[in-house]
């Protein structure tokens, strides 16, 4: 019976849909985190037979991250123009559209697109946005704002930073949301109930007044540029909390650990911010507060993985990976206890072509010539290049960069780190250390990034998907789209 078949199919669809629903979604972004970042951090901190917390999540796959050119259509359209350079991933995830590299919350033709966090807020979910970067930086701002240009961060408008005539033809009026400084948007649109991170310098006295008027508990003060501290965070309460702990990006964990009495060490860790954000978003409504809490949507960003990868600083990159993975554990533990939370861990793009090289070897960047290919006489290997055996170029390879070669600014040598199975006397920066790391460049790459997931609907993250599909998966889980 056709009708019966259709009914059964519909019932199966309904059952599948229900399985993929979640009360809460915690979305963790390791900015710039590629597959090798994960492997290197695992080997560094837990050994080759260990696992990061993210690696223990049951669903695993990869995500493609390409952007599109300005004025491009979406995939499948005749005007689709992919761009291999990777950024704009925040908009792909949060709004489900491909866009150009500088765009936030708009597609490649400049049309405003709602974000998952806006939809969640509108539907009555509680919302949180946490980052170790300035909260106006691309990943957090991709959920909280709509801007033609990610450089339009504030505290003030400038035409060069905010307008994009290649998209709009003529300058937009300064009342248009798309050229409104991102800090001004965040302080007024109420999209996130909990806002924790850096970037106090982007906000001013008028912003603080706007936040207070909406009921935010403001930690520190934009007016006086007094940064919040982890002590402030620990005692924070209320339905809406705004706390920025540095005028710019937060301080890297390695520095805080090495200088425990510094002012920067008073910044909370990403784990501490994650724990507090979850606590604030799950607290029971007090008298006088709205009882609309149906669940929450929380985004957590470990931003400094990317920033220290740009700098090719492997020690700091690894430290930020550990800090990010510690936050993943907080989310995972909450989800395991809650039983109705989807946790997704992924990245926006890979940064710097991070590589693990075999102990004792060297990279092309250190070499006097590319690898040998002298067997062109062999019909099985007769490709064009004929090159003699290569060797290290002393002017490009002055020793281990976090060891003997640390003072040479032109040194392309590897960074080395001890791993748990190394002998007790082995130290970082020595040739005896087991983990040898190098970088391809100082910029983003086009490599697919890993994704790990746990909870209702997480099986959709197995395999390889494109980053705009994340919008549908999260939106469906929270019943924001159907």
């Amino acid at each position, binding site marked *: 019976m056709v009708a019966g078949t259709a009914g059964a199919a519909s019932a199966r669809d309904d059952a599948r849909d229900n399985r993929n629903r979640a009360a809460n979604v915690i979305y963790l972004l390791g900015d710039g985190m590629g597959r090798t970042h994960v492997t290197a951090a695992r080997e560094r901190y837990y050994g080759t037979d260990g696992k990061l917390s993210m690696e223990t999540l049951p669903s695993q796959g990869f995500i493609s991250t390409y*952007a599109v050119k300005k004025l491009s259509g979406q995939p499948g359209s005749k005007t689709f123009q992919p761009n291999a350079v990777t*950024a704009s991933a925040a908009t792909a995830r949060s709004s489900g559209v491909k866009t150009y590299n500088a765009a936030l919350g708009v597609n490649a033709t400049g049309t405003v697109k709602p974000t998952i966090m806006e939809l969640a807020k509108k539907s009555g979910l509680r919302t949180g946005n946490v980052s170790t970067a300035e909260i106006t930086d691309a990943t957090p701002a991709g959920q909280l704002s709509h801007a033609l240009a990610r450089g339009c961060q504030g505290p003030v408008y400038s035409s060069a930073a905010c307008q994009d005539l290649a998209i709009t033809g003529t300058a937009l009026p300064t009342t248009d949301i798309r050229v409104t400084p991102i800090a001004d948007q965040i302080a007024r649109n109420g999209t996130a109930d909990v806002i924790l991170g850096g970037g106090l310098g982007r906000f001013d006295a008028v912003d603080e007044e706007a936040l207070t008027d909406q009921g935010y508990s403001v930690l520190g003060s934009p007016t006086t540029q007094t940064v919040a501290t982890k002590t402030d965070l620990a005692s924070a309460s209320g339905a809406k909390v705004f706390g920025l702990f540095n005028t710019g990006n937060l301080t890297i964990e390695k520095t805080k650990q090495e200088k425990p009495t510094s002012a920067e060490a008073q910044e909370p860790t990403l784990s501490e911010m994650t724990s507090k954000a979850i606590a604030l978003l799950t607290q029971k409504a007090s008298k006088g507060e709205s009882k609309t809490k149906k669940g929450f949507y929380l985004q957590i960003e470990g931003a400094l993985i990317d920033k220290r990868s740009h700098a090719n600083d492997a020690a700091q990159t690894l430290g930020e990976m550990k800090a990010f993975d510690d936050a993943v554990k907080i989310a995972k533990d909450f989800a395991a206890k809650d039983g109705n939370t989807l946790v997704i861990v992924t990245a926006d793009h890979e940064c710097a072509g991070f590589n693990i090289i075999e102990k004792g070897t060297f990279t092309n960047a250190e070499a006097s010539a590319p690898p040998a290919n002298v067997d062109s006489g062999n019909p099985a290997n007769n490709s064009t290049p004929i090159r003699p055996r290569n060797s290290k170029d002393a002017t490009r390879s002055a020793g281990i960069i976090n060891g003997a070669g640390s003072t040479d600014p032109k040194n392309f040598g590897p960074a080395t780190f001890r791993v748990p199975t190394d002998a007790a006397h082995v130290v970082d920066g020595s040739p005896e250390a087991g983990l040898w790391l190098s970088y391809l460049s100082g910029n983003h790459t086009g490599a697919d990034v890993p994704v790990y997931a746990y909870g209702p609907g997480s099986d959709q993250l197995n395999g390889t998907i494109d980053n705009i599909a994340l919008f*549908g998966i999260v939106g469906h889980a929270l019943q924001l789209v159907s």
Partner: protein
Amino acid sequence: MIAVSGLALSGLIVWGVNAAARTAHAPSAPPFAVATTLPGLAAPTGEPQLASIARMHPTTGAVVPAAGPFDDRFVLQDLRFDGARVTGVVDVTSDVSEVLELQVLAGFYDADGALLGTDRFVHHLTDDGGTDPTTGTPQEHTAFSIAVPAEFAGRALSVSLGVPVLVNE
């Protein structure tokens, strides 16, 4: 309340997600959730200024820094003023992979230290896939040059310099 004018909003509503969620064609959502008006926000009417520049009265020949919101993120170096233009270098000292936006605002003063007027240096990194080979390289070191506006020629005897716009990552 300020109304947003000329705003393009997608009206496309596509329902039916689950199977499609794994494809490249993610579902769209209704645009109603976007806050397109920002209550109480005054629309900017021009390029940014620095209040500190108006308060300063530098002595003849001086090139002095003016306070701005990002003073903990850069240092000004190699400052020179020859009466016709002020030059120097902004070295960004916070995280840098790219300097996306930078403005250096110069205040020019007469012999009494009274502000004559301002002009600015604007750096904007085109960020559309690095198609411009001159803008794809990380920059921490940005040289600037700001000429004395023609109407103040010969009268500008000192300078203050500040940074009202800085976006780097």
